[in-house]
């Protein structure tokens, strides 16, 4: 069994008095793609944000590479080698594509840009075409590519992706997911993927969790969950 990179133990998060996460346990092994699927309001994004320290977990522990990061400020967590492509992408709209990518390298003091930029551009050639364009003028798919590319510029050990398929055309979704797969296969990058698009996510994932109402209700390998009738009924055949 490979090494555990990120681990959560009984993580509980509150927004004011409302409990969003009700004791989450999860494990992400080094070199694998882990995915969390679930419907709207299940707490997937909250889990993602909690790992990154905003909001902080009120109970439980989150351990990254043997280090307890539960109470760490967000920017320090970023310096440990976690990078995030947040929900809604959150690129810097008035800065150019290149400046956005450069901001991604903040944790490495903007060094070695010449080496890393070609990697991102190889993954998403569209970004190279638009490198001096203002990021706010990109299409949704290009913005998502930029958000992932920006996270990659930090040379992370663990990449957190929050709904990369949100609001994108199916063909772009395919492109994004194959890029994620390539990152994992070729660079050995560990990925934690939060998705509503269960079909795509489960096909990709080595391990998967199903979240309902702030709790994890099922877990297993991606292929296992894909075969489970209750998963199929709830997330694969119903809505899509």
């Amino acid at each position, binding site marked *: 069994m490979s090494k555990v990179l990120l681990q959560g133990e009984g993580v509980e998060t509150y927004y004011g008095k409302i409990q969003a996460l009700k004791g989450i346990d999860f494990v992400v092994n080094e070199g694998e793609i882990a995915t969390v699927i679930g419907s709207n309001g299940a707490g997937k994004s909250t889990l993602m944000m909690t790992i*990154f320290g*905003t909001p902080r977990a009120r109970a439980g522990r989150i351990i990254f590479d043997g280090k307890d990061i539960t109470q760490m*400020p*967000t*920017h*320090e967590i*970023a*310096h440990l080698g976690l*990078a*995030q492509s*947040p929900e809604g992408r*959150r*690129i*810097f*709209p*008035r*800065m*150019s594509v*290149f*400046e956005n990518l*450069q*901001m*991604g390298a*903040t*944790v490495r*003091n*903007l060094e070695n840009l010449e080496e890393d*930029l070609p990697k991102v551009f190889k993954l998403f050639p569209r970004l190279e075409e638009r*490198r*001096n*364009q*203002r990021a*706010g*003028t990109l299409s949704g798919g290009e913005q998502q590519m930029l958000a992932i590319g*920006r996270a990659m510029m*930090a040379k992370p050990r663990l990449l957190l992706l929050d709904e990369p398929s949100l609001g994108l055309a199916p063909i772009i979704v395919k492109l994004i997911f194959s890029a994620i797969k390539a990152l994992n296969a070729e660079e050995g990058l560990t990925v934690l993927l939060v998705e509503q698009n269960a079909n795509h996510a489960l096909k990709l994932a080595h391990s998967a969790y199903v979240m309902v109402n702030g709790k994890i209700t099922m877990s297993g390998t991606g292929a296992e969950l894909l075969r489970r009738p209750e998963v199929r009924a709830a997330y694969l055949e119903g809505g899509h």
Partner: protein
Amino acid sequence: MSAPVKSGSGGFETKILSNAQIAKDLFYTALITFPILVPIVAIRTQLDQGVLTWHSRFWLASCLALAVVIARGLMHFLVWNPRAAASLDVSASAKPTSAKRLSLSDRIGPYVSRGLLIFGLLLPIVAHLGHAIGIELPSFGELRLVDLATYILIYVMLGWGLNVVVGLAGLLDLGYVAFYAVGAYSYALLSTVYFPRWFGTGVVPFAFYITMPIAGLLAACWGVILGFPVLRLRGDYLAIVTLAFGEIIRLVLINWFSFTQGPQGINVPKLTFFGLKFKDEPGGFADFVSTHFFPLAYNRVQGYIFLYYVILAMALATYFITKKLRRLPIGRAWEALREDEIACRSLGINTTNTKLTAFAIGAMFGGFSGSFFAARQGFVSPESFVYIESALILAIVVLGGLGSQIGIVFSAVAIMGSFEIFREMDFMKAVLPTGTEPIQFRMLFVGLAMVLMMRFRPRGFVTKREPTVYLKEKKAISGDLVAEGHG
């Protein structure tokens, strides 16, 4: 009413009105305007020896109502009329005009800042030559022109300082004048009270050169003090707290009498030429130059020209430091912070430090210009640091185009210069109601200018944002492509 409806996309959805419809619209306009004007204008109350009387001014109300109807008529024919609007309206034909404007500004852009710099350096010489050969603006002598330029440059420097906080870091600060006040009072108190006490009176002529860095440092400290409680605030909430901060500083200055001498103010030593006073006396500047270098007669202008060059040097230092900072990681972090705070944090930027440095550096420039202001004026009192000053500086920054340094120069010249022009417009007295001065209408003018700007150039004079780094090619982007700022 069949008035045009503004559509969500920002353009105008216009129905072409027939003349009859326009006439109907104007009739209703008159019908609505006149009754509104009756209580406001037509009935004038007066206190006559303790008795409240009133007299009517229906002719004036009628004139105003007529003016409103005519103005609306003009709007119908010139602006709301789609054909005329196409030639007048910038936003309706945004694409082609902006492309044209971009190419024009691309061509002249690089020369504008250089031209301004040369103009700034030569201004006193030009004024002096003009004076020598007898060309002078009416009641605008050499001395007055240089003094006005000095005055405007103070605001340019304040604008550049505030630009760091508002334009780059996106933190709306309505209390910027507080740092200006801290700088001014630092100079005033150190040069009149503390330096004589600590080092003797011999140091007083040099006080400005010693206190200016201290004033900047103190203002920066106050910037951090303001920054801490507002770290979690953004947008309107931040604006309110900074507004309160500005007022608190002013009220403290008024009420802490034993320390600041309250509303009386403090007389402070004027700026010297590295210890030499600009006075017609032995040991003054002219006397010193005459005995050591070349014969020079005393002239009041010398002092003013020196003041001008000092503030020019300070303002240029502000400009180049800010420009340099924008290229450093901290400047990039400010801009990223303006765009998206959460994304910043997840990229490993310490938003607390980033915000505090923005506040501190912005405040520092405010402190520098404050101490210069005190040394120029020779007198400080809390009256100079009222809220309207903050609003004015913010207006300069916004009119210039948030984040644009050159735009701030233009808007400072436009606003502060127009105030002075109003002071000179004596001929306007013939038109204005008796007992009013043209200068009293200056704020009205600024308000009108603001409204027009928001209509025709909603992002300020200079809307381009030059990328701080380029990949292979340099490409500036038109402001029309930019989304409105968030929070």
